[in-house]
């Protein structure tokens, strides 16, 4: 199999790769050392491998690496660090939304995607946005509280920034391409077209942590 040249920009770092065409984005990212992207099932059922692909949350196991050629990818570790955690990461830690922590990076990525498009979501909207991310420890209650806390903290941050004479978002790394530089909170438009062919279940889009589909699946069983 001829290798496919693939350029990935991950958490602001550029990678030029030659990969077998069947390598998933999940595997490519983990091989590059982005092990905060977790492998829970490899078939798009658990959401642990979620990353932002041009600002959209996707299950990286359901995307071939070459399909992401040229894309801007942000993993959870790209959002913040121990010294400078992202407000979403901090909120998860603060309210006890983290137990074993294995689903957490994917949860935070889904939260980031949600809050980028909907800064003040209702509980139902949060539940729906996280429905593709399985957690076996928490029962989701404290995760939902973390999202609400993060939303209010980000809101306060935006207001504080807006109140400053020269508005600028000072978060240095990690927000990747998903915030426009002016701090308007606009979400970058997804560039890669990633729908269709890999879905193993007609009800879902392979790239998206699509909403509510597990519920319908349950009904079908």
């Amino acid at each position, binding site marked *: 199999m001829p290798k496919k040249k693939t350029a990935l920009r991950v958490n602001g770092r550029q990678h030029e790769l030659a990969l077998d065409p069947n390598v998933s984005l999940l595997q490519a990212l983990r091989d590059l050392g982005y*092990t905060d992207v977790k492998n829970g099932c490899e*078939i798009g059922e*658990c959401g642990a491998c979620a990353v932002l692909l041009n600002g959209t949350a996707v299950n990286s196991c359901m995307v071939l690496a070459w399909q992401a050629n040229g894309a801007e990818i942000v993993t959870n570790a790209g959002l913040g660090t121990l010294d400078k955690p992202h407000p979403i990461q*901090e909120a998860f*830690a603060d309210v*006890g939304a983290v137990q074993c*922590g294995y689903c957490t990076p994917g949860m935070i990525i889904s939260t980031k995607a949600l809050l980028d498009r909907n800064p003040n979501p209702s509980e139902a909207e949060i539940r729906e946005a*996280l429905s593709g991310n399985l957690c076996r420890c928490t029962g989701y209650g404290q*995760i939902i509280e973390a999202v609400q806390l993060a939303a209010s903290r980000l809101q306060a941050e935006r207001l504080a920034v807006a109140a400053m004479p020269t508005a600028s978002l000072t978060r240095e790394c990690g927000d990747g391409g998903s915030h426009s530089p002016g701090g308007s909170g606009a979400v970058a438009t997804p560039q890669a077209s990633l729908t269709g062919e890999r879905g193993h279940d007609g009800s879902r889009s392979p790239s998206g942590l699509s909403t509510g589909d597990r519920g319908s699946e349950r009904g079908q069983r």
Partner: protein
Amino acid sequence: MSDRVTPKPLPPHHLPSLKQIGKPLRRVDALGKAVGATVYAGDFSMPNMLHAKVFRSPIPSGRIVRLDVSKARALPGVACVLTGADLPNARLATDLPGQTGRAQRKGSDAPVLAIDIVRFHGEPMALVCAESLEIAEAALQLIDFKYEALPGVFCPEEALQPDAPKVSGDDNVVARWQVRKGDVEKGMAQADVIVENTFYVPFVEHAYIEPEAGVAWVDEQGVITIRVCTQVVEHFRTVAKALGIPQNRVRVQGTMVGGGFGGKEDVTVEIFLALLARATGRPVKLVYTREESFLATSKRHPFKITHRTGVRRTGRITAAEITMLADSGAYPYLTPYVLLYATGMAAGPYKIDNVKIDSVAAATNQPFTSAFRGFGGPQAAFAYESQMDEIAKALIIDPLELRRINYLKTGDTTVTGQAIRSAAWSEECATRALAALGDKTPDSPTRKVGRGFASYFQSYGRITWFHDTSRAWVGMELDGTVVVRCGVPDIGAGQSNSLCQIVAEVLGVPLERVTIYATDSAVTPLAGTSTATRQLYMSGNAVLQAAGVVRASLVKKAAEMLGVSLEDVDLDNDFAVAMSQQGPGVPASGDSRATAPQSRTSCCGNSEVRGSRGLPLAEVVAKAAASGLPLAHLAQFNAPFTDGLDPETGQGDIWPDFTFGAHAVEIAVDTETGEIEVLKSAACHDVGRAINPAAVRGQIAGGSHQGLGYALMEEYVVEKGMTKTPSLAEYLIPTSCDFPATDVIVLESGTGVGPFGAKGIGEPALTPAAPAVANAVADALGVRIFSLPFTPEKVIAAADAGKDVVKPDRHW
């Protein structure tokens, strides 16, 4: 059921106000996990590392006619292939993991790799390791396996028939327990009504999000080192035994575990990795796929449980006769102890003087069963709490009133004659859980609303005749920071944080100033298993002891420096203070929780704020060190040691103590689709003392969700020994959209045997949820479903027929 319940007032109890204990502080492990800095078992790699795969049996019962691995060995890039023939003496000891000097049961071993016979679908048969995962996968395809199918046995009842195929021993009996207390015949004769029912529960999968994984290598001393996600670092002994090498030549370096729930209590990848690392002399990595995680590891036991209960018209239970039959699957693992737990808790939190229990576990060609959160307790509770509501129905008495009449109280004895020594707040918990449901939601034309609740009691701490121990080391650094070393595996429940919070309390430092090194069999003192809801109890007491010794040194030096008596010194928020001389500007000790100083001091013991009568702890530490006072201590905590049960009567102590609580739910049944919606869920448990209330809430909310999944969605389907649900698309666990958050009510009696009066809550949190749903469904429909889970098919059948649904779809 009565719509409105008034919470029973709590008995007088003393709960001292503390500085760090009882605060919902951010867990010490939380931020690292939140920013993705935590390196889990599968995230770790080494130079020159090989990748392993396991060849597994595609059939549940057969004779190995040929297992030819020559083509796999010849594939370029393959470093090593091992089969059972290469390892004739490699046995996996499945009994008694952890710190105990007790001998293991005879016949409890399993082969590391199958030899001659395969006994379950997924049984390991060969190991491959290669330069890449792709080559290892290709090599698996080249293994030539020919078998002769053998008749299998796929139901424990059939397994006990004399002519059944033999999976274990000459009768397939893996374990039996019996309890004889009082006189059951006499008790039944005293009864006005006798109620008899049979209940069924299915296989259930742990379904943690992190599949099993590890990396092993041989270090420069020749020690086989295994970095692995496990609940039991003491499996280094199991590995040494399987390899036939001394125990001090194996090291298990545990990682943060991405969920365990009992599924990482037994050995998973460790022995395979050790064998391959030894054979190749190179680091080897093995990560299970999701499907392999399902096929290769234990399940929760299916049970058939029959209750025959005698009761007076007044509601007083006079006798209970209970039989239990459990499916052990192909190998024993922890089945005998799971069966013991189920047996010891079979009658529930009720005082019954005349009891006869007979339980048996049988081997089959099904997935092997072992530990799963609750360890037999959830199966027992589904049966005894469903039975209680059936008794109430027969007597036409309120279910709460029936329980109120029969609840165990402090000083009463369990079915095995063990006295309850701590608070038994069953009624306090049940009334609060019910009250939290609020006003009842009205029915609609196609939706029937029902309410139910369940009480339970459950042990925490290991079986006392295991002679359980834990160790922990606590030391001060010269700048006043603290280090804890303890072999505790952290499986996500906050095990390491609780220990840090206890140490912070004792030494008067903020939680951020405590660092813990955990879960390494070589460098952290062995703390035993993260199982049996035992770590807070066991290792919590060990760190409490160790920190107490360090505190004594600091107090002695501080008393000298302050010129006051030892009793007058307190350590608080990085300062040593004389309590008698406390004034403004000095951190107060013994404050109520709401006004205690927030522990956010900078990391350097800032002398600017010392005040006139407080000493920065770092100064005290320096002086104590200069005087040669001990600033570090290794402590060992021993659980109570007992000798075991009377084999004829089953009488004796089994556990250190018990947790009590209740769960209540309101559900709506759609009588057209059979779907059940959980409308409200509330759980109330007496946790003794909540070390970290946010973590306690997390345990209860998460346990509730697993229990609701057990009730409504989860069934690991096995047909003729073949797994039919090997993915998260087929085996469904609750998502964020399936159930409302459980309203968590935490009571603190302060009477547990853990540190500061704590009880255990990790496993108990799950137990009452499923029977609460069972009782709510029966309340809504007027008929009962006697088997889990409550699938739409069963619900429609019950609703249409207007009668009980007795038999499950499968297994029996």
